[in-house]
């Protein structure tokens, strides 16, 4: 390799470059998106799983009889589907960083650990929202707008954008908590089990307010707007607290 010296490969940096957290954040984002576009592992598996959950709902509800009003439990069903599909994808997001020691390479770089958290949580949120754009309309058609022969109540649901807003705020919490817990569990033997066991209890307060918010919109009863906004505010506070805690604790969780 005679050309090596000529390339200046052996020369050290005279001045070390400035570190830009924004550049590092964008790099992780771009890398995760490029990886997903190539493998389609997370979005495809979450999307398929979401559709399968809808089929299972349909089978289960087909036995409830005509006097059962599906819209009364639609918000709960919707969130259940989102929680289950999220757990599947969130696990994959950190396994990508683990298979060949990539997380070590990431940790060896001069990057603030919370930037890694923010970037991973952002890509997880993006993938969750993409899956929801596909799966939620199908759910809406089946269980809210009444295109399929399950019994629906005599109600007019609130505007769809309120449902979309509720789901987006919920997804922010799911992505934040999920990224944190996936990081905790990735180095453990029972990582699928650990994520599932920790995820639901930590998410419990968020799920509670989101069900209340979405139930109010889907039910469309008088004054549903105030119930919706009150619960959405609760969800936003939960997200702020959990994401701030994750931001502070991420260093400790990574152990370096």
């Amino acid at each position, binding site marked *: 390799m005679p050309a090596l010296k000529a390339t200046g*490969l052996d020369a050290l940096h005279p001045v070390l470059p400035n570190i830009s957290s924004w550049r590092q954040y964008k790099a992780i984002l771009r890398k995760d998106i490029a990886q997903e576009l*190539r*493998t389609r592992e997370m979005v495809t598996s979450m999307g398929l799983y979401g559709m399968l959950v809808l089929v299972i709902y349909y089978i289960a509800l087909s036995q409830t009889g005509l006097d059962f009003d599906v819209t009364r439990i639609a918000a709960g069903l919707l969130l259940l589907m989102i929680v289950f599909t999220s757990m599947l994808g969130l696990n994959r997001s950190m396994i990508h960083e683990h298979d060949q020691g990539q997380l070590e390479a990431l940790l*060896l*770089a*001069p990057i603030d650990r919370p930037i890694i958290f923010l970037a991973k949580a952002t890509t997880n949120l993006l993938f969750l929202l993409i899956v929801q754009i596909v799966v939620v309309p199908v759910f809406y058609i089946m269980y809210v707008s009444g295109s399929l022969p399950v019994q629906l109540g005599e109600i007019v649901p609130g505007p769809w954008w309120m449902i979309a807003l509720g789901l987006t705020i919920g997804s922010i919490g799911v992505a934040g908590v999920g990224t944190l817990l996936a990081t905790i569990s990735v180095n453990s033997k029972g990582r699928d089990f650990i994520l599932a066991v920790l995820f639901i209890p930590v998410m419990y307060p968020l799920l509670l307010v989101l069900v209340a918010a979405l139930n109010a919109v889907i039910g469309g009863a008088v004054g549903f707007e105030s119930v919706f906004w009150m619960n959405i505010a609760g969800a936003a506070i939960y997200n702020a607290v959990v994401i701030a805690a994750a931001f502070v604790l991420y260093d400790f969780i990574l*152990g370096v």
Partner: protein
Amino acid sequence: MAEYVHNNNQAEAASDTPAIIARGVSRSFGPRKAVDDVSFELPEKAFLSIFGPNGAGKTTLLKVLSTLLPITGKGSASVAGFDVKTQADELRRRLGIISHNPLLYPDLSAEENLRFFADLYCIPNPEERIDELFEAVELKHRRYDVVRGFSRGMTQRMSIARALLPKPEVLFLDEPYSGLDPHASEILDSLIANIRGNHTFVMVSHDLDKGLELASHALILSRGQIVLYDKTDNIEKEAFRGLYRKVVGLGVS
């Protein structure tokens, strides 16, 4: 084993500024001490080869020195003049690691991998640097191919390019020759020879011949403790081999 004392003073004398200082470094996993009270100083631009049986604590020591694992207890260490506990970010900017694990993203192309790490280290003019490295590791023709399709040798060459991206002052090599074909070994030899003058190297190896050939300093670890540390000039090769065989025979239990 009396003649093989921990001859730190002799080794230190080779240079004024140490690139690596370890003082009472320990690392435990539960009750097991993987690294136990390790102290040594390595001069700048030296090449240290670390030998020892499996489980002796070689990789753990590298991980502690590279900030990937915290020190257990009171010990301290610095690399390139920066403390591993309190100045980790500054240290990381000056450190490159080549391991038997490629630390690459197999679903990304070679170019995407290097681009990603160039952004993590905020390297100015990344294209220029990436071109330079592809030429150096002879992978220019595969730069747009996905790493998953690379042979072991090519992956390791990519790993070398990744480690050299930020022009590190200190390079840690964790069994870098393991699984390499002769051509890839030759490229690694050549790369080390070409950059040796400006960098401090620490290499973990099971290959005594290769390790001693490259090293200016040698260290044998057993059960997390230093059995021998000295300049290779002061080491009598056959006696060293005998000691190494004895240490490997002791195992780790």
